């Protein structure tokens, strides 16, 4: 093979290496734009059409909706937290939405998140577990109105 071909192949290979890297970086671009949705406020109609799940959860008129979270037992008894469209982090950590002053709760204990027209609870690998109606959670499950959720010594409920 001639000297020239080999030189061309040599540089071609270096270019190929960088093409791979740039393709990977551009494939990751979407991941780097976290929070753009939050910064831009409500999604536009066009974004919603492209991505149906970006749409704000529509008000469900038929079924009674959970509007607040009430602590029924434990140190924070009586506390209520209004439910908006964003997920709620329960635990002792300062970053939690509802900071539980409960020695039996973990830092990031459980997460309550809306999906469709329902709220789901998910255990975040807590030490003492999360109980939905006296059954320990092994995966995310829907929380119906009035069903007690126990975290350590705290019991919470969703109310309309």
């Amino acid at each position, binding site marked *: 093979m001639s000297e020239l071909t080999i030189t061309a192949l040599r540089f071609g290979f270096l270019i190929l290496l960088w093409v791979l890297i740039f393709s990977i970086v551009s*494939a990751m671009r979407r991941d780097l734009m976290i929070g753009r949705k939050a910064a831009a406020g409500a999604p536009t109609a066009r974004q919603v059409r492209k*991505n149906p799940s970006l749409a704000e959860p*529509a008000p469900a008129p038929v*079924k009674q909706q959970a509007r607040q979270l009430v602590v029924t037992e434990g140190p924070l008894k009586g506390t209520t937290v209004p439910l908006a469209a964003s997920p709620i982090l329960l635990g002792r950590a300062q970053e939690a939405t509802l900071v539980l002053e409960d020695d039996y709760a973990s830092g990031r204990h459980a997460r309550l998140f809306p*999906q*469709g027209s329902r709220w*789901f609870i998910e255990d975040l*690998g807590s030490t003492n577990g999360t109980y939905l109606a006296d059954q320990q959670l092994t995966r995310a499950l829907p929380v*119906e109105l009035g*069903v007690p959720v126990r975290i350590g010594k705290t019991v919470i409920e969703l109310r309309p």
Partner: protein
Amino acid sequence: MTPIDPVARPRRNVELVLLVLALAVGIGAQALVGVDRQKAFDSDFWFQSGLLALAALAFHVVLRIRAKYADPVILPLVVALNGLGLAMIHRLDRVGEDTGNNQLRWTLVAMAVAIAVIWFLKDHRILRRFTYISLAVSAVLLILPLVPGISAGEVLGASVWIKIGSMTFQPGEIAKITLAIFFAGYLSSNRDLILLAGRKVGPVQFPRFKDMGPMITAWLVSIGVLVFQRDLGTSILFFGLFLVMIYVATSRISWVIIGLVLMVVGGFVAAQVFSHVALRIDGWVNAFTPEVYGREFGGSLQIVEGLFGMANGGLVGTGLGQGRPNLVPFANSDMIIASFGEELGLIGVFAIVLMYLLLFTRGFRAALGTRDAFGKLLATGLSFAIALQCFVVIGGVTRLIPLTGLTTPFLAAGGSSLLANWIIVGLLLMISHTARGPVDTTPLPPGQEPGAGRKFPATPSKPAPDPRTNPDAPTEAVKQL
């Protein structure tokens, strides 16, 4: 709150495209190394690249089936690195040597094991149950090379090998995974305890002495590896791994301070007491002194030859198969970065370093995205282990820090390291699958719904339409538009 992508998309097709590019890099390198020796497209080449491509595509298909939402760039990055390593090792084989094919065999075994991990484990959270078993397994793995009978004895100054039949294996490589599992499990359960108790001295809060137990254990393990196995690199790796994981778990800078002090003390004592550590440091500081260069044991010949090689490569390199990286001892394992530096130049080595960096960021992204503390810590620990290994090896080869015997992940010749790193990739892919995928909210089988028949009767169990699992289904809002 951890930001979660509004829509979970598998993005497996992106992965396929990138995978094809990565295979082009690996196979292209394989073709280039033999291009002027009239063996570019011989049967060996077709056999090797065919097997690599087949294994990579099989991995991709398994991800499609089992971990649909796994990160789409991890697999292409690793395949590209592994392919580059295979080509370089094959190229460095002297007549009669078979390291290249051996490495290919190990690659296939390692990928098969990683596939098995993804296929059978399904969820990384299961590993949390094995927290203390992992600790025991790590201890056994670390002691194995010292057990007479299966120990391979002292090879190149370090006794880290075991020998079963004619096969040799480095159990310490697997121990880094089991240790990461133990640290993740332990810290995710005891994090709150460690965080709450402690005495405040000035602005930093120091932990209670009794919470220092794991720290002391990690330190002793590292020192033990250094003393009994005479392996400085692995010792640094274990302690660094623990330090990072406890920092991530507690976000207390005091741990890092205590850890670094312990490490400096340990390192200083080791340098005084053990000749091999002192020689390494001497070979690093006085690398260009003729006496040090020509010394028979612990000389700097390897480092200096590597530097000369890279200097010869310059900016664009001599081209694959055109340089003389063979002049450097261990050109295909410890010094493989120097071999790449010579043949691909600075531009090529930067590309490789960037690939490691991207891999590392994807591991951290998985850690950020996943919701359970154990997964977060495990992903952090595992990806940090890869990053630290790169730093120690590449830093050593480029004479930034003393050269220690760690392997360059995925590139260097060595089956145990390849196996361990592919298992790490399998675990990271699985964690990223849970991080990026939608939460499983499908209804339970009838009769298991908790809370049925309580104060407020549960609504008739018609499953709520789930926009995340079926992005094509219009939601109420879209229907109204």
